[in-house]
Structures are given as C-alpha cells and as structure tokens.
C-alpha cells in the first residue's frame, strides 16, 4: 500500500513545482510548456487517486487543448519583447521562437 502514498506525494510535489514554473518562467513559450507538463502530471495524479474518467478529460484539455489555445493567443498578440531584465532578448527570441 505504500506505493499509493509515495506516488501521491511525489506527483503533488511535481505538480507544485511545475505550477510554480508557470508563474516564474519569464519566457512565454516556456511557461506554456510548464502548463502542459502540469496537465500531464495532474492526469497521472488523477489515475493514482482512482478517477480515470477525469484523467481522460485532463489529458485532452490540460495537456493539449489549453496550451494550443495559449499558443494561438501568444502568436496573435505578440509584440517584440526586448528586455534583458525579463530574460527575453531579441536574439534569443528569434533563435527560440
């Protein structure tokens, strides 16, 4: 029975970490990717907690559909960011996105 507790707390720690990453990463694409990781790990947590139907909808919505919607929104509203204090310079931006 110990695997349930261990997986539970491990996944809780990972979800907390990736949710903090969503807040702390200044690169917008990186933040969206951390959101997708949080959705994937949350679906595993739902399976561990015994709710596979919720895990299905979490995989589709939280791991794929929501990040794609955010990507479309970022691509449509993006202005050129050139602020080294935010960790986004124009060179890095053109190389990374």
């Amino acid at each position: 029975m110990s695997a349930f507790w261990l997986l539970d707390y491990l996944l809780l720690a990972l979800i907390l970490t990736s949710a903090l990453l969503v807040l702390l990463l200044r690169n917008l694409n990186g933040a969206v990717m951390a959101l997708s990781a949080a959705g994937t790990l949350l679906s595993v947590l739902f399976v561990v907690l015994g709710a596979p139907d919720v895990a299905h909808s979490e995989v589709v919505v939280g791991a794929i559909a929501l990040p794609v919607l955010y990507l479309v929104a970022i691509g449509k509203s993006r202005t050129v960011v050139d602020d080294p204090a935010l960790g986004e310079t124009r060179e890095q931006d053109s190389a990374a996105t």
Partner: protein
Amino acid sequence: MREGIVIALAAIGGFFSLTGAVGMLRMPDVYCRIQCSSMTITMGALPLLVALVVGEGPVSSYGSRALLVAALLLIVNPAASHALARAAYKTGVPMWPGAVADQVRDQVAAEAQSEAQ
C-alpha cells in the same frame, strides 16, 4: 523463471531510462538531447513494456495494451524526434562549439557553389 525475466527486463529499462534522463541534464546542446530522449524510448521504454507483456501474457488486457503502446511508440517516436530536430535546425538553434559535422550546411554550400559555376 518468468519473474526473473521480468525483473531483468525491468532493470534494463530502468537503467536506460535513468541514463537517458541524466544525459538530458548533462548533454551540451539540443541535438544531443534529442538523441538522449530517443534512447530513453528505444532502450528504456520498450524493455519495460516487454517486461509487462512477459509478466502478464500477451493476450491478457495488460499485455495487449502494452503491445499496443510499444507499437505506437516504435512508429511514432522517430517521426516526432525527426520533426523536433528539423524544427530546431530550421530556427537556427546553435550547435555545441565542439561539434565536428554539419552535413546540411556543407551540402547547402556545395549546391550554392555548383550553381555559381
């Protein structure tokens, strides 16, 4: 006997998954990391799935799902790695300075030279 095979295959898969993850942390540039990710699937995930198939039997529901996931990963993961490497190269992600070969750049240069002649 069967449990021994399962334990051996799980040990192989766990070892290669761990080395792939460590390689993802230690490798110097994107292309090496893509190679590590591919190794995590091919040598890490497939022995684990084969361990599940051996442990449960290929016609049980667990074994059949494991075979299905293994076939899916085997077909789909090279395509995904290829698309990622191509996107990274096209957006100009720099290589590690110690890299010795860039055949796409050489070929593009050779084609430009033959067109100039």
